[in-house]
C-alpha cells in the first residue's frame, strides 16, 4: 500500500466544480499553501471552502478567492491580518458566508468524521448564530442542536507521513487538520517528509492512515505568515 502520488497536480486531481473542500490551518499555521496553489492551477469553480479563516494577503485561500473559484466560505473568523480578498467579495455580495463559532466548527467537523449527524452544544444559545436551529433542554439548561460537516476533499499539511498515510503535525499547525482528515471523502496530504511504514512510532501517530487517501511530499513548504510578511502573491 502506497498512497503517495507523483506530484501536486495529481494530488488535487478530481476536485471538480461545486466541490466542498476543507482546508487545514489556523492563521498562518498549517495552511497547505502548495496544495492550495495547485488547486488554483487546476481551476475548479463554485467551491465551498471550510477553514477557520477566510484567507490572508494574496496567497493561499485569499488567492483562491481572488481567482473567483469560491462560492461560499464556512469559517469562524474571516477577518485576519489582511482579509481583503474575502472582504471585497463579501461586501460586493459575490461570496456567501456561513459563520460558525470556532469550537462548534471543530466539533461539527469531528462529528462528520465520527458518524454523529447532530449534537447539542451550549455555544451560541441565545445569539443570532443560533437562529433557526433546534433547541434542546438537558438537565434544565438550553442547548443548540448542530449538524455534522463533511466535505468531498480535505487539503492537509502534515510534518511526517508514512506511505500508508499515518501523519504527524508540527506544533500548532495541527489545529483543524486531524479533524478534517476524518471528515472528507478524499483526504489529500502534503507532508514535509514521507517515510516508509514503521518510520513513525505507532504511539505518536496523530492521524491514522485510514483517514488519508493521497500523499505528496513537499520538502520545503511555504509558511503562510512568512509569505504574507514578504508580500508574496500567488500570481
Amino acid at each position: 500500500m502506497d498512497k503517495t502520488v507523483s506530484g501536486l497536480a495529481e494530488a488535487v486531481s478530481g476536485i471538480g466544480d461545486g466541490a466542498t473542500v476543507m482546508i487545514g490551518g489556523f492563521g498562518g499555521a498549517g495552511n497547505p499553501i502548495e496544495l492550495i496553489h495547485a488547486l488554483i492551477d487546476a481551476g475548479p469553480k463554485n467551491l465551498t471552502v471550510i477553514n477557520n479563516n477566510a484567507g490572508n494577503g494574496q496567497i493561499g485561500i485569499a488567492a483562491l478567492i481572488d481567482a473567483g473559484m469560491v462560492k461560499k466560505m464556512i469559517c469562524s473568523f474571516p477577518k485576519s491580518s489582511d482579509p481583503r480578498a474575502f472582504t471585497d467579495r463579501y461586501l460586493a455580495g459575490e461570496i456567501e458566508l456561513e459563520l460558525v463559532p470556532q469550537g462548534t466548527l471543530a466539533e461539527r467537523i469531528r462529528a462528520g468524521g465520527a458518524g454523529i449527524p447532530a449534537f447539542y452544544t451550549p455555544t451560541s444559545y441565545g445569539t443570532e448564530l443560533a437562529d433557526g436551529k433546534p433547541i434542546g433542554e438537558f438537565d434544565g439548561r438550553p442547548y443548540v442542536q448542530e449538524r455534522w460537516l463533511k466535505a468531498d476533499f480535505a487539503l492537509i499539511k502534515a510534518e511526517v507521513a508514512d506511505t500508508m498515510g499515518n501523519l504527524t503535525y508540527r506544533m500548532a499547525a495541527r489545529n483543524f487538520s486531524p479533524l478534517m482528515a476524518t471528515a472528507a471523502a478524499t483526504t489529500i496530504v502534503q507532508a514535509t517528509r514521507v517515510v516508509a511504514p514503521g518510520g513513525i512510532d505507532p504511539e505518536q501517530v496523530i492521524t491514522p492512515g485510514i483517514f488519508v487517501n493521497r500523499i505528496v511530499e513537499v520538502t520545503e513548504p511555504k509558511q503562510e505568515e512568512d509569505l504574507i510578511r514578504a508580500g508574496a502573491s500567488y500570481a
Partner: protein
Amino acid sequence: MLDDLKLSNAQIAWRAAQDIADGAYVNLGIGFPEMVAQYTVEGRTPIFHTENGILNFGQAPAPGEEDWDMINAGKKAVTLKPGASFFHHADSFAMVRGGHLDVAILGALQVAQTGDLANWRVGNKGVPAVGGAMDLVHGAKRVAVLTDHVTKKGEPKLVESCTFPLTGVACVTRIYTSLAVVDIEDGHFVLREKLAGISMEDLQSVTGAPLHTDGEVGDLIVPAL
C-alpha cells in the same frame, strides 16, 4: 446430506477473504470471523482494525511472547505490522461509525432478508453483553456475515425477520454461508453463488425467505482446508 456437502468454517472464511481488496481496512468480529485473516489472498495487504485502538495489527505472537497491553478486541495478544498506530476508543469508533472501514465481517445468529442482523443475544436469560457489535454493523461501507446456513437443529439462519434480539436494522449486505453466497438488496436475498452439489430447491428449503436471482448463480468453489 447437507452436512456432507457443507463448507467448513475455514472454507467459509477463505471465501470471504477472496472479497477483501488489497489495502482494504477491515474489522473482523471476535471468534469465527477472525479466521478470515488467515486466508488473506496472496499479494494483498488488508489493514486490520480492532475496536480497542490498533490499526494494522498482525498475527498472534509466539506463546510466551505475549504482551497483554497489545491485544485485540477478543483480548487475544497480537503483534504490530509496520505502519501500525494506537488510538483511544473514541477515535477507534469514529473510524467505525464514520464509515471509514471498508468491510466489517461478523458472525450471526440470524440474518433477515431486510438486512437486519441478530448476533448478540439469544433471549433474555443470563448476562447480556453487546461489545462493539451494534457499532460495527453501522460502521463499515460493507457489512458481511459468516455463518452456517442453518442452526445445529437444522433451522434456517437466513430468515424473513429475526426472532432473536436485533443487533442492527438493514445493515448486512452480504452473507457467506456454509452453502452459498447471498447478497441483500432492496429487502431481498439475492443468491450469488451456491455449492454445485446442492439444488436450488434444496437450498431454498433450508432458507427462511425467498432466494432471488439476478443473472447467473455462480458455483461456490473453495479449496480443501
